[in-house]
């Protein structure tokens, strides 16, 4: 079976899922299945077939599983959003159509992804500009204390979603070029005195710092790992001038903490950066320096920036019943019923789901009388809604679908012949996977909850658009990689 035929067959279960999902939701709503459910399934399938035909024409050798997996996720998202609010689902469906146009547009425009390398500094500058936009007066908008969106007339837009693509493209290109010279192994070992200096001084200084500054266990570990990684980097021959842009990325991540006040996006960007750095150089020591610098910075800002500090406090003391002043109502309330409300309710909803869930459309999102039981059910907490309705099995299935998507992305990277293609595929896939980890980890209390979308599933135009463009880029890389392999007879 050809790759494209496999893709087409992959879409069949997806449309079945859409029909079944909508039928379940409608059945609990109106007690009988309407023709509408079949229409939804048919329209969705139609759209996917159009996209499939387009891929068939333009990227005949692209990976056959990526698109059906993405369609599956989008289908799950549509059903869940429909269940929460049919009006939002209609909007999301429109965004899906627009997204497919972007998807096809990207494939049409970028025949060869290597052209992106030529514009890498332009792309980097544009991405940084996009990140700063929400902070600009007039168009910037604050959502839950974080600056993530801009408002242009009626359209609300989250530029960070696109900035993540730009930054990955830039880093892939930059690291392809400098990865080899960033650090180079020494040909001869250092003389003894230099070795003594290299190892001795940091050990003494670290011990002193721990004793004098009284860092505590977490801080001490962080410092030791940092110094050890730094020494490991310095042992080789680091190229100072090529480190500049990397420090810039670190600074950018920190700036995001301060300016955009969003830990989740910062984690996503910096994580993607470190993933690329590791793949490009193969040096764990660089990752060690990066991770410790990030956490050091994050802990520092956790104490400095109140929004970030609040997020940490909510994460650690979710169920605290201490009475605190609630900023949203101005009254004294128990912490768990104000600041901790979102995370606590997320976990309560998941507890209600159990193994198999309560069934599509049966989740309790609003209390009678209108008080919200699952805040932001269509965006941040959509995963909690899924656990509630489809249970642990449904949620594990979703995470499994993401993992398959990530697997295909990494597979593309491994098949690709040139460094830029490899790094681009790895970077795009990693940033998507990290986004899943940040939001699902947030609502399951693995890490502090910050508002990023669940890729392809959450409601939100910019997110869906950006992820479909990401998918298009992956398919482009995949097409060229697989074509070359087929040419060489390595892929049947």
């Amino acid at each position: 079976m050809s790759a494209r035929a496999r893709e087409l067959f992959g879409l069949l279960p997806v449309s079945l899922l859409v029909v079944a999902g909508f039928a379940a939701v409608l059945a609990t709503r109106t007690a009988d299945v309407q023709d509408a459910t079949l229409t939804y399934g048919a329209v969705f399938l139609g759209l996917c077939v159009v996209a499939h035909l387009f891929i068939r024409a333009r990227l005949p050798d692209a990976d056959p599983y990526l698109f059906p997996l993405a369609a599956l996720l989008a289908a799950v998202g549509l059903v869940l959003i429909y269940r929460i609010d049919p009006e939002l689902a209609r909007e999301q469906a429109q965004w899906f159509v627009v997204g497919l146009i972007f998807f096809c547009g990207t494939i049409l425009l970028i025949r060869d992804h290597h052209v992106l390398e030529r514009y890498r500094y332009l792309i980097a500058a544009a991405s940084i500009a996009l990140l700063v936009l929400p902070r600009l007066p007039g168009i910037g908008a604050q959502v839950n204390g974080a600056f993530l969106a801009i408002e242009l007339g009626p359209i609300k837009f989250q530029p960070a979603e696109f900035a993540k693509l730009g930054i990955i493209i830039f880093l892939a290109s930059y690291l392809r070029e400098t990865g080899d010279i960033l650090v180079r192994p020494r040909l001869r070992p250092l003389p003894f005195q230099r070795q003594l200096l290299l190892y001795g001084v940091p050990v003494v200084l670290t011990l002193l710092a721990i004793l004098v500054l009284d860092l505590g266990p977490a801080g001490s570990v962080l410092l030791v790992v940092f110094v050890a990684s730094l020494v490991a980097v310095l042992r080789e021959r680091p190229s100072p001038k090529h480190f500049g842009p990397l420090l810039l990325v670190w600074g950018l991540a920190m700036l995001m903490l301060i300016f955009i006040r969003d830990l989740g996006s910062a984690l996503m960007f910096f994580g993607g950066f470190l993933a690329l750095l590791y793949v490009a150089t193969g040096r764990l020591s660089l990752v060690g320096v990066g991770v410790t610098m990030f956490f050091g910075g994050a802990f520092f800002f956790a104490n400095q920036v109140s929004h970030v500090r609040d997020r940490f406090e909510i994460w650690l003391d979710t169920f605290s019943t201490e009475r605190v002043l609630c900023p949203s109502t101005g009254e004294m309330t128990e912490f768990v019923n104000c600041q901790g409300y979102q995370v606590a309710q997320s976990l309560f909803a998941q507890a209600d789901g159990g193994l198999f869930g309560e069934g599509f459309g049966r989740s309790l999102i609003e209390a009678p009388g209108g008080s919200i039981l699952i805040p932001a059910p269509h965006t941040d907490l959509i995963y909690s809604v899924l656990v509630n309705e489809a249970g642990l099995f449904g949620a594990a299935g979703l995470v499994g679908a993401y993992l398959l998507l990530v697997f295909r992305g990494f597979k593309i990277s491994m098949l690709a012949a040139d460094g830029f293609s490899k790094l681009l595929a790895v970077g795009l896939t990693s940033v998507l996977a990290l986004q899943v980890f940040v939001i699902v980890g947030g609502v399951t209390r693995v890490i502090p909850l910050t508002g990023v979308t669940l890729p392809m599933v959450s409601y939100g135009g910019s997110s869906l658009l950006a992820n479909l463009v990401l998918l298009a880029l992956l398919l482009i890389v995949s097409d060229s990689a697989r074509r070359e392999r087929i040419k060489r007879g390595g892929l049947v």
Partner: protein
Amino acid sequence: MNRQIAQLFGLFVVLFAVLVAFTSYWSVLDAEGLEDNPSNRRALIREQKIPRGLILASDGRTKLAVSVPRGRGEDRVYTRTYPTQGLFSHPVGYSYLRNGRISLERSRNDALAGEEDEFESIFTGLEGREREGLDVVTNLSVEGTQAAQAALGGRKGAVVAIEPQTGKVRVMVSIPEYDANLVPSDFGRLNRDPNKPLLNRTTQELYPPGSTFKVVTATAALDSGELTPESIIDGSSPKEISGVPLSNAGGTSFGPISFTDALTNSVNTVFAQVGEQIGRRTLVEYMKRYGFYADPQLDYPDEQMIPSGIINGDGDYVENGFDVGRVAIGQGGLEGEVRAAPIQMAQVAAAVANGGRLMRPQLTDRIVRKDGRVAERIEPDLQSTVMKPETADELTAMMSRVVEEGTGTAAALAGITVAGKTGTAEVGANREFTQPWFIAFAPVENPRMAIAVTVERTTGQGGTVAAPIAKTVLEALLGGGG
């Protein structure tokens, strides 16, 4: 590069596994903990959407609690109303979104709310059935409850009637009662009321049991072989007990007297000596067999029951160091004073009535599905064997004398023989009030009902105040064919 890519993929596999692990923890492993979290209102709200099961009296017809739908379609919720108003308020309790739930509404909540496990709920979903609550049929007698409430006549107090062979609780009346229908609107007032209408005096309040406790002392003395009903003891008054003189009621001096006569006339000095003779250890041992020192094993919320026992001036339960002579007559001092909940004293009477076998008290008879099928029948369950059957026979004979010719003649029923024991504890700062008691069972030949009656802070004796109430309730319960 491919090696690094593979390693990176491994990292993501681990990260995603962590996500699934945490999801499992919240959704399955710790789900119960989260459901019990007081901030979690999901269960309460969901249950509002389900018609809660009925609570019915023992006749299976009289509705004690019903659910009434309000609103339409998606917004339809059910609220509880209590057709019998205050009559069954203490055993039944209330269930409201804002006020929570108490009493049977709480202890039988799983059945009333139609709680299902994972697999059952899948079937319910597949069959398209709406989840609904199960009905709870109680053992509570309408006639008995009405009679008890009427007989107390507004005086603060408690009446508990139990079937000795089965442990079925037929009457649980605590005055003042409250109208559960008013809880949503008047909760603050009910909570602040100095008469404590929300307090179930049968299980949540401890009183000095006075001379009714002599039944416990007598059980210990007879069953341990220390005495027989015919043993002769010096009943002169006053007598020095623990270094302090103790007098009989009215100062009557009886001289040498049989143990049976001592119970008939409730002779304090005899029982104080008996207490000293059997000792603290034996007395506490028998108290525990009767159920003292532990919550009643009733199908009722733990929060609404407290153990009876010997309590010192600091409010701690003690098992030694107390003045055993005074505890033996239902009193005590700062080192330890015996205090009992009315249901505990009803259990004392029930254990004697059932040949020494104490049955676990049960408010619920059965749980019934909407289609009439019985989902669960609560079978009689032995709580403990308190004494030998011969001891129970001896005690029954002694207690019969109390009603025939002793302090409890006011409880005598026409055509039905009653065995009982009166008690009158002095309470108040200057001992200006009394706490009259009467515990009894009937008919003597084949006991079908045991009862405990007490009135709070009043004047008068157990024989004149409490015994007539017991008589009225026993008549209502036994006269109508039980």
